[in-house]
């Protein structure tokens, strides 16, 4: 044939076709529950968070201090060597201002997810978290934070911590707003 077939098959449906029963559909809601094991590295990491400490792992072969921690060095492909306590401060590697909830619905005040390069990691390594005390409109956030801004963790009160990444409530620009 000289050109691709321009009469392609496939039938487009509208919501109305389903609502009125012109097209038939069925629904299924799976009731699947997972319980994940934290594992060795993340288990220790979470226990550290509960105690108000941010922990990384150091490999003596390549010298890297990695976070999130793992018990092996994926570069040297050997068991890495020791736990290192890091300061809960860093710099904003990148951030976003999200108006979309976890279920894709719209939110009025934004979340500010960020990759934060943690001070003391070698070479510089980031974790995912959220920024706080940076305003609740797009304009305000862009005024209050930039890529490169130094930030510090704001922790939950010790008695409320449960050994979760959310034991750090958020990171905020160093010294508060």
């Amino acid at each position, binding site marked *: 044939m000289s050109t691709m077939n321009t009469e392609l098959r496939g*039938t487009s*449906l509208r919501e109305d076709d389903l609502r009125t029963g012109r097209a038939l559909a069925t629904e299924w809601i799976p009731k699947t529950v997972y319980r994940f094991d934290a594992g060795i590295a993340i288990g220790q990491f979470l226990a550290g968070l509960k105690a108000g400490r941010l922990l990384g792992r150091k490999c003596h072969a390549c010298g890297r201090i990695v976070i999130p921690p793992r018990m092996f060095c994926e570069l040297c492909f050997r068991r890495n060597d020791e736990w290192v306590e890091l300061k809960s401060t860093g710099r904003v590697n990148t951030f976003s201002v*999200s108006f979309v909830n976890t279920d894709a619905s719209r939110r009025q005040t934004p*979340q500010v997810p960020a990759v934060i390069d943690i001070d003391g990691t070698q070479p510089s390594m980031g974790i995912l978290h959220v920024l706080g005390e940076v305003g609740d409109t797009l304009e305000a956030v862009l005024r209050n934070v930039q890529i490169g801004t130094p930030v510090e963790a704001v922790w939950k009160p010790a008695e409320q911590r449960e050994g979760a990444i959310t034991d750090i409530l958020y990171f905020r620009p160093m010294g508060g707003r």
Partner: protein
Amino acid sequence: MNRVAVLGAGLTRFVRRALETGRELCWEAATAALQDADLTLADIDCVVLGSAPDAFDGVHMKGEYLLDGAGAKGKPYMRIFVGGGTGVFMVPVGWWHVASGAFRTCLVVAEEKMSSTQPHPQAAFNAIYDPFTERPLGVNLLWIFSLEMHRYMKTYGIPLETIAQVAVKNKRNAKDHPASQVAGDFTVDEIVNSEVMTYPVTRLMVSPVTDGAAALVLANEEFARRKGGKHVWVEGVGWNLDTSYWTNRDLAYPQYVENAARMAYKMAGITDPRKEIHVAEPYDPFAYKELHHLEGLLLADKGQAPRRLEEGFWDRDTLTGIPASPSGGLLGVGNPIAAAGLMKAIEIYYQLSGKAGARQIRRSAQRGLAQAWGDLMQVGTVMIMGVER
């Protein structure tokens, strides 16, 4: 290794919600490809299928579910999945089945039915994040891309308006694609000022949710010669994955795409890709990704793909540049994940064989490349096709 020729291709329409089931979409694309190749299923020695997470369709072991529609009953068959990188990766997978000498021919099928998850596939996507260090923060899929885009923009000082031009170009190109879902004429202002999803990503810089399928027929040289005519050949394939600890990566540059491209260039005997690649289909699920990927593919210096864009270097009608996404890409034709990647590979086949109709590029082209990307922003998949020389 055996040389591998492309004998035919097929696509369904790309739509937000298809009446057809995944099996039916597979069957439509597979039979269209066989018809294009002037073959029947009896000529097919093996079948490979690409499709993204089972969670979209709500069917466990989707490969088996789709088997009959893909023409695989009673044949050697496998399903492959590397997230968004799947569609282009289907060409390397089909290629190794034939190049190895194990089979004369291979039918390659890619399918996605994303509309099944209600109200939106977002919830299925969120399971890519780590259950301890990431999900409790209230993640959504857009976070990871907007974070990467912002880092890319900041590193090279790229304005949002420049990135928006990718969406303008691709949605315009897609007006000439018969499968297209979200083609149209848009201005940079309309793209930039569309609803902010996750700054800096706005709604019109994101590819849509799509149902659709695509298929390709590959054959060894002996089989292709017996069919006669001039053929398009698979000349190089490459793939590569970076660490899953994505927050530890350099987000401004896709090193894994470069690694995959270098593997494919080496196989194709390409030493200067900017001269030897004449048309490209870089993966564009988000506007910035096309530019990010053109740099990873070594078709522009780091941070320079946006400047080339402003110069018209990637335009479909360029005579001196490299047309990028002449199909209209995911931003214009649509994004049924695995099928979208294979659609991009198929566009290179159409362009090199002169079958692209209104989308035919103006410059001459002997070689073209398609690339896709996915998993946790960590896989690069590349395939290079060339015309008979």
